[in-house]
């Protein structure tokens, strides 16, 4: 049973560019959330998707957007990249009956130069 899978694992982008990160939730899970983890800090909630809609959003600018597909997979898009966007981006998933138990992927390391 595959866990939460994310791609790519590492990438380097130039300031001002756009990036798309992808996530496949754990089998049977229908809810996906995204977190940003800066080096040496705890994860920060970006947003959550359920039934292909953004249900909740953290304190992140509109440059951060997302999408959930009918198969429950999700994308995180970041436009006009800033140096401060360099971080580990974590995807987490959960499903019915799991309450607030979420399962994280290994993340995508984004470096903005």
């Amino acid at each position: 049973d595959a866990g939460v899978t994310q791609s790519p694992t590492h990438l380097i982008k130039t300031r001002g560019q756009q990036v798309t990160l992808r996530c496949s939730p754990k089998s049977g899970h229908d809810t996906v959330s995204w977190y940003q983890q800066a080096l040496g800090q705890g994860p920060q909630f970006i947003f959550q998707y359920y039934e292909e809609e953004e249900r909740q959003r953290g304190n992140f600018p509109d440059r951060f957007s997302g999408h959930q597909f009918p198969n429950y997979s999700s994308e995180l898009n970041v436009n006009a990249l800033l140096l401060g966007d360099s971080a580990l981006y974590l995807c987490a998933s959960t499903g019915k009956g799991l309450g607030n138990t979420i399962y994280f992927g290994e993340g995508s390391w984004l470096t903005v130069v």
Partner: protein
Amino acid sequence: QQQVKQSPQSLIVQKGGISIINCAYENTAFDYFPWYQQFPGKGPALLIAIRPDVSEKKEGRFTISFNKSAKQFSLHIMDSQPGDSATYFCAASILDYGQNFVFGPGTRLSVLP
């Protein structure tokens, strides 16, 4: 009010010793308090979680103590092992609000053999 404070920032314990990590929160609406363990290059993994209707929860060598009046909770790792060396994050959320977790800044634990 959304902040979760965590201490110490780093902790060194001898094998077989007890590791204690403390967290404090302000928002009294929080009703779910998990602890996550993160190894380098991996996503956070749920260790143990507690609801505020109980004062203590134990799972194997891991125990959460919860003090609702003080708005504090702590993780105790009994008989600490070198394999426990990782970064530990406390978190808090409101169950009805989904996966919008507020994480502490993390504690880097090193268990010496």
